[in-house]
């Protein structure tokens, strides 16, 4: 078991403390996990607009037990996590205890540092995450919220630490992926990183704003069902090159009837199962065409289209332009 406790601080200080505790040096604000503890990296970048972004792609080889003291309530962290191979997770925020044992967790939530935090997580988990760190003052200035101040104030200083939750959809995943793929040699690395981080923040704030204006706004799905939907979503998006399992099989995995699965999924992800799979495939196609300079044929094949004209038609339907025009 890897034990780590620290006082609330910014991400860069946190990373330094963590590196010390693991007994490894930081290189370019990047911590490469030592073999006994895990594999992969954790990196922090101070963006030029004043916030810090922490991101990691790692697998841990030991169970982790982390404790953090409460802070002044003005520190905010927006977390985007995509965790696989979960067996047991327990999170204690202040006095509130959350336990989870479903294998996939993929969600976004905003926390403030008003309460203490403690979490324990099993060995073997694979975590891809992007965290944005800022404070309430930065937030008010930067977001330029002006006339809606009261709403935001209420939201950001809420006594509960986890104030709003959203599932990760492919739009988020795509931005996360782009952050992981950015090379420091990119000609405008800082700008590219900042833009993606800010797009994630913007998307999240939109949901938060809706929630604040309408407290009843949410998925309208019990928490355990929401968790099962995350498992289903992960199955759909993990292999975009092969046809997804049939609905009957997905229903078994989700432990609900086919009809119930269809309606619940639609409530959470706004699209039908197949439609969601297809949309994600097209987003992936656009991503490959724009960032990887892959040919239309290569992309079509990678995404499992046997017939390229079907790919072209599907792409055109989604984005209103031909893949060759991207």
């Amino acid at each position, binding site marked *: 078991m890897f034990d780590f406790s620290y006082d609330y601080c910014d991400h860069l200080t946190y990373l330094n403390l963590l590196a010390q505790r693991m007994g490894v040096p930081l290189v370019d604000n990047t911590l490469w996990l030592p073999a006994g503890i895990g594999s992969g990296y954790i990196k922090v970048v101070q963006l030029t*607009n004043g916030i810090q972004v922490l991101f990691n792609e790692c697998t841990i080889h030991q169970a982790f037990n982390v404790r953090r003291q409460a802070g002044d309530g003005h520190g905010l962290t927006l977390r985007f996590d995509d965790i696989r191979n979960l067996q047991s997770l327990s999170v204690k925020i202040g006095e509130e205890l959350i336990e989870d044992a479903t294998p996939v967790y993929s969600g976004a939530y905003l926390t403030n540092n008003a309460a203490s935090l403690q979490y324990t997580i099993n060995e073997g988990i694979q975590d891809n995450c992007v965290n944005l760190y800022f404070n309430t003052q930065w937030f008010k200035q930067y977001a330029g919220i002006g006339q809606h101040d009261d709403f935001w104030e209420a939201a950001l200083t809420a006594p509960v630490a986890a104030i709003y939750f959203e599932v990760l959809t492919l739009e988020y995943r795509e931005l996360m992926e782009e952050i992981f793929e950015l090379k420091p040699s990119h000609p405008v*690395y800082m700008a590219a990183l*900042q833009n993606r981080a800010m797009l994630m923040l913007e998307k999240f704030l939109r949901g938060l704003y809706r929630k604040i204006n309408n407290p009843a706004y949410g998925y309208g799905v019990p928490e355990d069902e929401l968790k099962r939907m995350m498992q289903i979503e992960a199955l759909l998006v993990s292999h975009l090159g092969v046809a997804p399992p049939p609905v009957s099989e997905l229903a078994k995995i989700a432990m609900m009837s086919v009809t119930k699965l269809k309606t619940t999924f639609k409530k959470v992800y706004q699209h039908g199962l197949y439609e969601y799979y297809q949309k994600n495939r097209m987003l992936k196609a656009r991503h490959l065409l724009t960032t990887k300079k892959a040919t239309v044929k290569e992309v079509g094949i990678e995404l499992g289209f046997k017939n390229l004209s079907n790919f072209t038609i599907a792409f055109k339907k989604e984005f209103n332009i031909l893949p060759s025009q991207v």
Partner: protein
Amino acid sequence: MIILDLKHTDSKTLLQTLAQLINVPYHGADYIAITPPAGTGIIKVIDVAEELQVLLIDVTLNKYFVGKRSPGNHHFYGLHFEQVLVTDAAIFSVDGETLQKKNTLHAVARLTSNMFYNSEEITAHTPVKAVKVFFSERWLTHYLGVNNATEALRQYLMLKTESFDMEPLDAEYLRLMDEIWAVRKDDPLQNMYLRNRATLLIERFFTRLHQKAGMVHRVFNLSEDEIQRLIKVEQLLAGDFTEAPPTIDAFSKMVSMSSTKLKKSFKEVYGNSIYSYYQKLRMERARELLLSGDFSIRQAAKAVGYVNTANFISAFKKQYSVLPGELIEKI
């Protein structure tokens, strides 16, 4: 004639000046509406951050328009993403060098700096749709996380008007521009929304600028001067479709390059052989004309230099896998 002497200023003052010149009322909002007899359309100016301003333009003026910007010590840049359907003529000039466009769809991303004297002249009744982002050197260097404006940027600016056709607007630019146009007044995140998209446009432009700068010097091994000569060839090709383009031999004399070298380096820089590049441009132009709804197939064929409409139809079909008639039906 309308002459606008642009100085970098806050959005309200800018709108006020514009409204006065064009002779339309200004009500203190972030936009002015242009109504007859001045013309039609809308101009919107929004300060999204300190020293970062977004201008949205969708207008057709009924008078000859001249916009100019004099050099200043406080360094500012303008990134112009513009679609100008030049029916008569448009003239862009930087530091005394001019670029004239006639009968073409000028759809490019270009960067200007107030290091030089800049001007643009657009004849009356020309539809202009543009997203322009203005920012200071201080803002840019801070945003990019560098101490000085980069070498690629300086090289680009030194090309003056020669650089103006280097970056055509493609689907991705147009998508971002559309998103900016789709901004909603009641959006509580309006500012963040606009800023994020403006910076995405800047990011994309600079990324590609660097890629090209690197490409041009390392891979192609062409001198700055040779590239300029290629740009000249490209401009001649893109200028006027009603007449047949000069022959390769004529080009090669014009730019003092052997025809083998010209063909080879043109293909490396523009990705197509000279003739297929010309053909592509012509068909793009024809497509734009057809999509505008104001041209019949015969007129479009004529505008891009086809005497025989049937030849035009088959060339169009070859390029877009759709007949011009089918395209018209869709709109």
